[in-house]
């Protein structure tokens, strides 16, 4: 009896310990509860109070002591005595605040999410590897390593990150590791490269070659040109230099269009929404109150937590730069130093193509190329899956790039092979650009720095204390023949390949233009006299015009004016479209509710402020109208693309009887006026339904319901809803999910550069830290931090904490 009882108690104890020491998947993932709730090592240990005021850490690989002062906004100011120590310290402090995010993003880049969350991420992972993300990162790393400056930079950064990783035990793991029950792994140089390729993927994947090819087959060339023009001719291009492009352009033989004979039934790669965009501009001293240039930048990305950017101030001999860095990569990406400032917006250019491949046989060892058989490379990929045996895949590489779709990775039975050509697969060393920008003194240095920059193509704005302002649309662009790259291409002939690239000095750029400002907001880049064909995923039509209008009108500009412009909520799209829409409702029979909505819209001032109800009604109307017009584009078998917002509104205005306004599902023949009326009723209905559900008025901020989600699928406990104005197509470009991920205003005054910055979130990536979201409210109020761009002694007087890193003695 005793033995039995003891045995039973032992068994229960062991069973409990075993069950509570591992994670369970019961439809929902449950962390190992014993480990997780243990207050000595589990999640409780992730709760942070104020940081230690003084701290001394011994770091292996460091050459000389480094001082890090954290200012009141938790921004680290790093003072190092040499560059290698500087980047090591940057890696170390960034990892301390953001390591989980750094690793998660590089796992996402490399297609390794299944290792963490299980089989549900397998398709995502396979798609990442089939797009050649790891291959692209390897190519980039090889370039970085072949340059001694960037090689040292990246190796130091890795050392710094690993100094943090080496000191970790379970209780120190960021909380996400404890939740998902996995462990941090050492950082590698390749991971920094992967991170940069992630950004390239975000900014280049608006391409729609498959959709355009299908549209061409379905509607014909004339309709395609009408619905999807290459240039919508709206507003000013980024650079208007008409007649001044005095160089001999590279020319190549024209290319006959060779579109596949059949519809393309494969699903396109996951689209990046058009909300991804950015604003940047610089005004010359002639237009400012101080007589010095002011530069502004705000990149619009999918807002997430931990925050996309990490503010940092880097000091070493010959270097004093501050701004936003990307966790996982050395240097400052959008920022300033004591002589210049720079910022970036996406150039939108089409740098992605798909080539139809003809394999010799099902072995796919050879493919047809200029009448001969060329060898393909097979790369075996293994995907570790949490809780399951691993999965093996083989990716076939042609010289164009990886064959993303084949019978292993394609839901339908029709075998089609398309190879993916992406400029980010080519060797490049963007890190060198940022290294040089960080220490640039003038326009010449800026130009030299950009010569290293390949991808993702960006509009680089520039201003200097010397008084220069400039814009350069930098990237590696294939010389396109008219129409090339818009549709799928024939992979069997060398003639349809990228033949040459636009030389750097022939890229679109200008310096100190007559209008005394430069600006970009993802619009069409250049005037008609530029001698190269330009194709892009989408061109912005509203923000750019509003910015340019206000900048042209303004004189004696102050930094405060620039902050107000970044937060401008004027809805130009509504101002241009709504009056005519309301006219279209004339003589229509409106219900009492619709009459009230009509009145609200008529009185609306076109500003998407937080409390505006007109903005909500307008948006609901548009959300009903847009898909109603383009019902023809929702096809179950083939992918098609809606025409742009601007073009849709233009067609309503100019061609109201176009056949596309007819709703295919109804017997009547609708015109633009009919769909406007129908969608108005639908939109008002949507608002009424919303009001009934929420029991409150449809104030814009509530109706929009912006959400800043944690990287783990917006885990509610670690995410926030915010009440904020703005929207896509508005300068304050905050839609429900996307928005200004970093706002910066820099006044380049001779007596000292002054700068302001803010982003939604906080410096720490730890949900258990007071610094996880300490900047969020300031950002939502459209306010800024004054960036403390000063020396260590002055900073120390109001520092939160000071950390001294000393070389570890062997």
């Amino acid at each position, binding site marked *: *009896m*005793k033995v039995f*009882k*003891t045995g039973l*108690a*032992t068994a*229960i*104890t062991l069973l*409990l*310990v075993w069950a*509570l*020491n591992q994670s369970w998947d019961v439809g929902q993932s449950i962390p190992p*509860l*014993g*480990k997780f*709730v*243990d*207050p*000595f*090592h*589990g*999640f*409780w*240990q*992730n*709760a*942070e*109070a104020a940081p230690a005021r003084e701290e001394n850490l011994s770091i292996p690989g460091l050459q000389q002591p480094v001082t890090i002062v954290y200012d009141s906004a938790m921004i680290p100011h790093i003072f190092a005595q040499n560059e290698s120590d500087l980047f090591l310290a940057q890696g170390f402090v960034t990892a301390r605040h953001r390591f989980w995010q750094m690793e998660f993003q590089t796992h996402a880049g490399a297609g390794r999410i299944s290792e963490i969350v299980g089989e549900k991420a397998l398709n995502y992972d396979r798609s990442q590897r089939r797009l050649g993300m790891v291959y692209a990162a390897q190519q980039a790393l090889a370039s970085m390593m072949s340059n001694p400056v960037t090689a040292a930079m990246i190796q130091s950064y890795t050392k710094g990150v690993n100094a943090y990783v080496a000191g970790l035990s*379970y209780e120190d793991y960021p*909380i996400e590791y404890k*939740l998902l029950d996995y462990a941090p792994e050492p950082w590698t140089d390749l991971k920094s490269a992967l991170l940069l390729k992630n950004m390239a993927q975000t900014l280049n994947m608006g391409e729609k070659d498959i959709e355009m090819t299908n549209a061409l087959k379905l509607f014909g060339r004339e309709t395609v040109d009408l619905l999807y023009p290459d240039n919508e001719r709206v507003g000013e291009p980024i650079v208007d230099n008409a007649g001044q492009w005095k160089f001999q352009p590279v020319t190549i033989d024209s290319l006959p269009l060779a579109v596949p004979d059949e519809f393309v039934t494969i699903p396109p790669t996951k689209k990046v929404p058009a909300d991804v965009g950015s604003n940047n501009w610089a005004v010359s001293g002639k237009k400012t109150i101080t007589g010095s240039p002011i530069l502004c930048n705000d990149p619009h990305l999918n807002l997430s937590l931990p925050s996309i950017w990490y503010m940092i101030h880097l000091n070493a001999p010959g270097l004093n730069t501050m701004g936003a860095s990307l966790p996982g990569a050395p240097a400052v990406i959008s920022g300033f130093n004591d002589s210049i400032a720079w910022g970036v917006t996406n150039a939108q250019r089409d740098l992605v193509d798909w080539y139809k491949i003809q394999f010799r046989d099902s072995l796919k060892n050879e493919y047809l190329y200029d009448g001969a058989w060329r060898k393909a490379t097979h790369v075996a990929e293994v995907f570790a899956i949490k809780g399951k045996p691993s999965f093996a895949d083989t990716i076939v590489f042609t010289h164009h790039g990886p064959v993303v779709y084949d019978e292993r990775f394609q839901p339908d039975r029709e075998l089609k092979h398309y190879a993916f050509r992406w400029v980010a697969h080519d060797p490049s060393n963007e890190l060198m650009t940022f290294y040089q920008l960080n220490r640039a003194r003038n326009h010449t240095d800026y130009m030299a720095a950009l010569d290293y920059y390949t991808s993702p193509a960006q509009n680089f704005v520039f201003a200097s204390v010397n008084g220069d302002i400039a814009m350069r649309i930098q990237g590696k662009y294939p010389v396109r023949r008219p129409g090339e790259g818009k549709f799928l291409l024939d992979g069997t002939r060398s003639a349809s390949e990228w033949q040459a690239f636009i030389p750097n000095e022939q890229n679109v750029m200008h310096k100190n233009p007559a209008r005394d400002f430069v600006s970009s907001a993802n619009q069409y880049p250049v005037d008609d006299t530029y001698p190269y064909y330009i194709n892009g995923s989408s061109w912005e039509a509203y923000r750019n015009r509003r910015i340019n209008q206000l900048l042209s009108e303004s004189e004696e500009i102050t930094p405060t004016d620039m902050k107000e412009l970044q937060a401008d909520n004027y809805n130009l799209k509504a101002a241009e479209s709504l009056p005519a829409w309301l006219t279209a409702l004339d003589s229509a029979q409106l219900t009492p509710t619709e009459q009230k909505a009509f009145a609200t819209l008529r009185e609306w001032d076109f500003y998407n402020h937080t409390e505006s109800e007109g903005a909500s009604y307008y948006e609901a109307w548009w959300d009903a109208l847009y898909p109603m017009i383009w019902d023809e584009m929702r096809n179950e078998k083939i992918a098609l693309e809606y025409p742009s917002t601007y073009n849709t509104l233009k067609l309503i205005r100019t061609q109201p009887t176009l056949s596309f306004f007819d709703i295919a599902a109804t017997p009547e023949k609708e015109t633009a006026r009919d769909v406007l009326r129908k969608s108005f009723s639908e939109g008002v209905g949507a608002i009424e339904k919303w009001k009934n559900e929420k029991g409150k008025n449809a104030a814009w901020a509530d109706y929009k319901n912006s959400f800043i989600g944690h990287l783990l699928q917006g*885990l*509610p*406990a*670690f995410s926030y809803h915010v009440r904020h104005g703005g929207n896509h197509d508005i300068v304050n470009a905050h839609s429900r999910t996307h928005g200004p991920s970093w706002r910066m205003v820099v006044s380049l005054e001779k007596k000292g550069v002054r700068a302001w910055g803010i982003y939604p979130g906080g410096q720490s990536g730890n*949900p*258990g*830290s*007071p610094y996880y979201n300490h900047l969020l409210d300031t950002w939502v109020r459209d306010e800024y931090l004054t960036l403390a761009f000063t020396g260590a002694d002055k900073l120390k007087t109001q520092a939160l904490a000071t950390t001294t890193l000393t070389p570890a003695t062997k």
Partner: protein
Amino acid sequence: MKFLAQVLVTVVICFLVQTFFPWWTLAVVCVVVGYGFRQGGFSSFMAGFLGLALLWVGMAMVIDHQTNSILTEKINRLLPVNAFLLTGLIGALVGGFASLTGALAAAKPKRRW
């Protein structure tokens, strides 16, 4: 008296051992302490149960207080049950069964005559 002593000893030793070792070492401590005290099975179970509930909830409360509940609030939204309750219950159950195991292993067989 012996009961309170076992609770106290469990708390103190678990605190020391847990500071350095993983969570499951509490079970080892409880088995040993339970064996040493040679109480009845129920008393030993309760001593371990209470000891670990006190230790884990107490420790959690100290952290919660020092950090202004910054993480507790978030975890309460994440978990279906209150974070303190779950922490206390899990520590207590393992502590209780481990202490019971120790006590049972130490108990002399009852004489039936």
